[in-house]
């Protein structure tokens, strides 16, 4: 299989701050790949660099075999779409769901808007009853479904997911994760997913990369992570942290 996304020695510099420092990555077509790390690790910057939202100062990004220049054309955005973390901030507050979904169709000059919007809404489990609502009339989970519908309406082959469920409640998170898995299976999509939650990433992705300070810590499969075969200290610490709080009675100092 060919690589859907291929990144070599990518560097992103803001002023003098190196947000990404020589990161390389290959994601196969149809694969679901996870990026894990804490804030400031560069995981979101990597995603944004692929989408053309971060200033790349060195290195190359290829998508479906095509090397990307500093500017992305329309054809690129028909292949690659992004879902953002905060469904409260990523939907236009004064546009109805219908208008939100029409926007990408208008930009790309696609006809049959009617049927596409119907189908997109059905696909994300929102009936046509939601079509003429404003985003403030929707719950967080419903908003994220609209954001997914908007990303899917152009029928991309790659979806970039930036913490798609971290603003949602646990029960809603489960629904959105199931929806994402379902559309991936139905359409054979490639996912590049960012999350700080190891459990979410191991659930969704086959392989993942642990990042820290703009660099790769290690690359491992979800199965290796699940059996705790992480070779790097930092990954082990993240794993331990995701188990919850552990009380160390020995470390109590008398007050």
């Amino acid at each position, binding site marked *: 299989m060919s690589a859907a996304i291929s990144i070599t020695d990518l560097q992103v510099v803001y002023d003098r701050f190196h947000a990404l420092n020589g990161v390389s990555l290959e994601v196969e077509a149809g694969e679901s790949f996870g990026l894990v790390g*804490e*804030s400031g690790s560069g995981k979101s910057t990597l995603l944004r660099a692929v989408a053309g939202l971060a200033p790349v100062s060195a290195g190359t990004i290829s998508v479906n075999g095509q090397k990307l220049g500093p500017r992305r054309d329309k054809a690129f955005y028909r292949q690659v779409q992004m879902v953002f973390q905060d469904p409260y901030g990523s939907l236009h507050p004064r546009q109805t769901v219908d208008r939100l979904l029409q926007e990408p169709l208008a930009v790309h000059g696609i006809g049959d808007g009617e049927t596409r919007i119907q189908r997109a809404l059905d696909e994300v489990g929102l009936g046509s009853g939601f079509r003429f609502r404003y985003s403030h009339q929707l719950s*967080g989970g419903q908003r994220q479904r609209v954001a997914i519908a908007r990303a899917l309406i152009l029928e991309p082959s790659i979806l970039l997911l930036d913490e798609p469920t971290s603003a949602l*409640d*646990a*029960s*809603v*998170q*489960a*629904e959105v*994760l*199931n929806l994402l*898995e*379902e559309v991936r299976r139905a359409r054979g999509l490639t996912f590049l997913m960012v999350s*700080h*939650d*190891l*459990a*979410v990433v*191991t*659930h*969704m992705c086959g392989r993942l990369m642990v990042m820290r300070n703009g660099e790769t810590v290690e690359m491992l499969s979800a199965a290796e*992570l*699940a*059996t705790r075969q992480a070779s790097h200290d930092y990954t082990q*610490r*993240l*794993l331990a*942290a*995701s*188990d*919850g*709080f*552990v*009380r*160390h009675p020995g*470390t*109590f*100092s*008398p*007050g």
Partner: protein
Amino acid sequence: MTPLLDVDDLRVTYPTRTGEIKAVRGVSFSLGRERLGIVGESGSGKSQTGRAIMGLTPPQAVVTARTLAFDGKDMLKMTPRERRALRGKRIAMILQDPKYSLDPVMTIGSQIVETLRAHENVARAEARDRALSMLEAVQIRDPKRVFNLHPHEVSGGMGQRAMIAMMLIAGPELMIADEPTSALDVTVQLDVLGILDRLVSTHGMGLIFISHDLRLVSSFCDRVVVMYAGKVVEQLPASELHNAEHPYTRGLLDCMPKIGADRHPLPVLARKAEWAT
């Protein structure tokens, strides 16, 4: 012995143009010198419960309760002045994001000193010394430097430690922590919880830990109150959480992805209308 905090049938209602919104609908629990977790999803009324105990409910809302007693005294019958004397001195609260809960134009040190001098009659130099030793107690490595920094100059974890220091300086007996670590990275989260845990046990405080994270609460607290739609659906010891009886608690535990469990699709929570009644 009277419990530290006794809450019986607490209700918080917001009158709006389209009718009343009942944010909290009859919550009852009592708290000793222990760690109590309040868990629920957004809109369950967990934060409103914490704010009502602290007395921070906005003025348009109506707070009623059969009893809302702190150390045997009914707080709803107190004058605003008595309530104010309690707040910060004997009951303290930590909020979610230190970026918003610290004053951006005051140095961290002067904020801590201000809290102390508002509640105790101490000299400036002594207040400074106590603030510095408090910063040291929350494991800030260079307290002298941090004392003179503004909140935007420190990281999230450092800011939350400063917040904890500020809240502990007056020696409160009850601490309400509303999502104290949700804005922090996982590894920092555990450091901050460790500090909170140690200080709570050494000072013998009661702690109300409000969180949406069932896993974190069950590993940190002694007892857990699960809230849904403004009501308590279940109260149980944290160690017994895996034996929870209520379908909501079970569903909430079940729907989280777990490392090493291969469940596709994830079980989703089927909400039932009768839970909310």
